[in-house]
């Protein structure tokens, strides 16, 4: 009996761990621009030796090693935008993420949600949802998992020029 329970747990466990990040996989489709970076990429990037003269480089690398998975989806398609909105709502209902910040900037609404780790400043998962103001604006959904500090994050978005970088800067100063 004990063996049976252990086997069952082992079978279910991976799906519990990975369940979170698959919710948005359906947005890998036509009409959506996507960038997806997986754990192995971060591991490999983190193992590159950078020029010690580049001050930022080491900080960048240290952060890279703490990242697990990055997904960014961007679309202007009205139907997909609606789908994104409802998917995010549904996701937030069934996952313990807190709204960290909400910003209205240039007609866009930027919402940032985080799931904290052991310490309040440690973030295990960050979800950013940017709703464009007009029909020409994109709606962006970004999911980043790992084990990092919020302060480190704004450093990263600056470097990678990801949408919402300035919002994150404000958020990390909180």
């Amino acid at each position: 009996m004990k063996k049976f329970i252990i086997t069952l747990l082992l079978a279910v466990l991976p799906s519990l761990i990975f369940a979170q990040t698959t919710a948005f996989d359906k947005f890998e489709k036509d009409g959506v621009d996507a960038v997806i970076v997986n754990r192995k990429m971060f591991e490999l990037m983190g193992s590159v030796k950078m020029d010690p003269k580049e001050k930022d480089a080491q900080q960048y690398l240290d952060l890279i090693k703490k990242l697990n998975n990055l997904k960014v989806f961007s679309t202007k398609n009205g139907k997909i935008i609606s789908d994104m909105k409802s998917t995010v709502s549904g996701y937030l209902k069934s996952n313990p993420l807190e709204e960290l910040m909400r910003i209205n900037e240039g007609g866009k609404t930027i919402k940032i949600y985080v799931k904290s780790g052991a310490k309040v400043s440690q973030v295990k998962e960050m979800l950013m949802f940017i709703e464009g103001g007009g029909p020409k604006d994109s709606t962006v959904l970004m999911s980043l998992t790992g084990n990092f500090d919020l302060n480190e994050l704004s450093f990263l978005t600056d470097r990678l020029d990801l949408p919402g970088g300035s919002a994150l800067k404000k958020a990390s100063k909180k």
Partner: protein
Amino acid sequence: MMLVLVSCDQKPTLQKYFVKNTESKDFITLDVGTGFLKNDKMKLTADESKALESMQKLNVLIFKRNDKNAAEFDKQKTEVKNLLKSDNYDELMKMNFGEGGISVNTKGEGEHLEECVLFLNQKDTGFGVVRVLGDDMTPQNVMTIVGLLQKSNFSSGQLQPLMDIMKPKTKK
């Protein structure tokens, strides 16, 4: 027990896919040896030599799409995508944009990569698969090689068909 040993050979692999399509009229294939970078004009540093040594082979397979082979294009593109999923590749990253996409996949434990596959595809022009085989290609080595390529102004003549794929199709 015997079944397990036999099944390994029957699985479709990207390697087999390359071999299979070398003769096909829809495909363009290129095999680049690493000798192209080893010439007298350039003096290589120890790091650069080591990096080149780690790279053994570079194969390129290109499918150029036209009005007649559109259906075949879709079929082959799907087959490559499936192979990347089923043949134990680690997907490092993927980018999809309007007309097409790029994915980078590897095989190898930790940072000692044995194989790196770049898959580029564009809806109207075609797709390309670049397969680099090596022995302990660490990210460090890959970056060194990229630097070398830039330094040597590697003539893109050979890779022009690949560049063409990624250019958006101009409407006539």
